């Protein structure tokens, strides 16, 4: 009897999980399907699910009009660059806070997080002026700097949480064996925290890839990443949903595939230390 209840519960949870999963995935699926419709089919009422005339014309139109590869390369450079730069700063910072906590460590952590609470538009004009004077407008390096600073609190917080799970005694032992600070962080701490660092890296690449406020506001023609590529397909006058969907599918495909292959690592990293 007890076993039966357990099975029915299991089935219920499975159904709910699939339901939630499909609901979350549905917008992406709909975008994908719309990208193969004609503009007229894209706005058909009632909406057409699979029974429409499949066409690749939107992808052809997008390819003809835009330079996808240059936007893609900008996205790769900006997201990977900002994540690596963030890690270089965050690993020592998180080490200090996890293993040599001071009286105000918690406050510092909260202060760092508080910078995420300000709406980005609040600092848009000052930052725009700084970028203008420094000649950083519409440059990849400018965006790498900005995205590094924006995602830094999250990187530090995530790494801090992972590092706290590592017993301090191991580092002490390394120190007693004569390891320098650099060696301690590089050869003892980092290898042990690889799952955590990897998931932080992946999550931040995704965050930087999808960042649309700064990447749209600080770029023009040269450093514009895929977010700008998508934005260029929205139209005030005329039908554009199918072409916009094709552009969106092309923009999210690389990061979706990356997420797919690394999902084990991502989930492992994100749930690390959750059950205690």
């Amino acid at each position, binding site marked *: 009897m007890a076993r039966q209840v357990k099975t029915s519960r299991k089935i219920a949870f499975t159904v709910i999980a699939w339901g939630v999963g499909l609901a979350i995935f549905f917008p992406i699926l709909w975008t994908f399907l719309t990208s193969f419709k004609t503009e*007229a089919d894209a*706005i058909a*009422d009632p909406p057409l699910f699979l029974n429409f005339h499949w066409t690749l014309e939107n992808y052809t139109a997008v390819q003809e009009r835009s330079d996808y590869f240059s936007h893609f390369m900008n996205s790769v450079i900006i997201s990977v660059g900002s994540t690596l730069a963030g890690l270089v700063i965050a690993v020592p910072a998180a080490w200090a806070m996890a293993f040599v906590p001071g009286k105000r460590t918690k406050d510092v952590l909260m202060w760092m997080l508080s910078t995420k609470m300000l709406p980005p538009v609040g600092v848009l004009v000052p930052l725009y002026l700084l970028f203008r004077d420094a000649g950083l407008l519409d440059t990849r390096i400018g965006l790498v700097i900005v995205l590094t600073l924006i995602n830094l609190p999250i990187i530090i917080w995530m790494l801090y949480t992972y590092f706290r799970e590592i017993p301090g005694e191991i580092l002490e032992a390394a120190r007693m064996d004569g390891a320098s600070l650099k060696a301690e962080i590089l050869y003892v701490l980092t290898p042990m925290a690889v799952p955590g660092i990897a998931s932080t890296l992946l999550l931040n690449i995704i965050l930087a890839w999808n960042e649309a406020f700064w990447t749209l506001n600080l770029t023009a*023609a040269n450093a514009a990443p895929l977010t700008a590529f998508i934005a260029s397909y929205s139209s*005030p006058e005329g039908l554009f949903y199918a072409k916009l969907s094709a552009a969106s599918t092309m923009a999210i495909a690389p990061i979706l595939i990356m997420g797919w292959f690394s999902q084990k690592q991502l989930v492992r990293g994100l749930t690390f230390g959750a059950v205690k």
Partner: protein
Amino acid sequence: MNMKLRALMGACALGALSTTAFAETTITVATVNNGDMIRMQGLMEDFNKKHPDIKVQWVTLEENVLRQRVTQDIATKGGQFDVMTIGTYEVPIWGQRGWLADLNDLPASYDANDILPAIRNGLTIEGKLYAAPFYGESSMVMYRTDLMKAAGLDMPAAPTWDFIKQAAEKMTDKSKEQYGICLRGKAGWGENMAFLTAMSNSYGARWFDEKWKPQFDTAAWKATLTDYLDMMNKFGPPGASANGFNENLALFQSGKCGMWIDATVAASFVTNPKDSKVADKVGFALAPDKGLGKRGNWLWAWNLGIPAGSKKVEAAKTFVEWATSKDYLSLVASKEGWANVPPGTRTSLYENPEYAKVPFAKMTLESINAADPTHPTVDPVPYVGVQFVAIPEFQGLGTAVGQQFSAALAGQITADKALENAQALTVREMTKAGYIK
């Protein structure tokens, strides 16, 4: 040795000269994603051939993003763009502030006097032309000829609001998802307020009196909003408070609207058999009036302007001259047909017998000519603009008032409450901005 040195120096000089001769100036053009602009990007070969020393880079953005980006860039002198696509709302404000380079020195062959006077006046301040129109539009009635016939009515070339209401009633059959009239309901200064402000002009209403006192507490505004809500609630599609240009375009193209009053540029979409189910059953008429001497049509143009701080003004002017010239119109006609030529900018285009064959050409011109941005209302006003008020505060104000009217359409508040709120918020903002002492 001496010979060798001389030869080397000569080669260097030649090299330097050739570098100068082929020095390429790169200009960045910020633009919106609409059919005419995209078409121009496809025709750049002609410009590149004529001006090999100028390279054009495009930044295409969604309208609202573009507006925010170019405003921010020009106000901070960011220098990101050398040519900007801007509307008739921005040009007078920016021109007055000295943010735009004037285009009075374009060569005589450009023939600036050929630009339609209604459009040119909106872009000129104190005799200086601050932007060149790329395409112009007004609004008009687009209607289903078959449904009008079935209703036993004949659409006059210049209808009244009373006729529109009567026709909407007769064309509505909600059981068949057929709605007599589709109008904008989505909140926004360029969305429902573009339509309602233009409609209010024909009802004798205005945003402000000559002393900048808001006028939403007048009978004319009450009549405008009451008639709009009445028509939309009885004969409009469900969920109309979320409908903008594109939503209504989709409804009309799928055969669900009897009439649609909106931008003249829609004519080429609804008559295109590739996307429209009703392409061969569409008629056109002037926007309605109330017998007060003003019609409910607006006037808009997308224009190319050059930021005053651009370091490449000459190259930018060369591009603007090419893109808005008579030759460009002929180029589009030769490659894509006359129906695809950017409309509403030049008198000569409407004198061309070939263009006269385009079904919506005549009505577009008449609609544009029926709008006067310098005298938009029945009673005098202190502002310029037909469906907008050309002051910097209008973007925020127009959207806030639009939200009130959209809420009234959604049934969340009454028409009286919406007007009362609109009056209160406009008085507050105009006082804060110093217009009301």
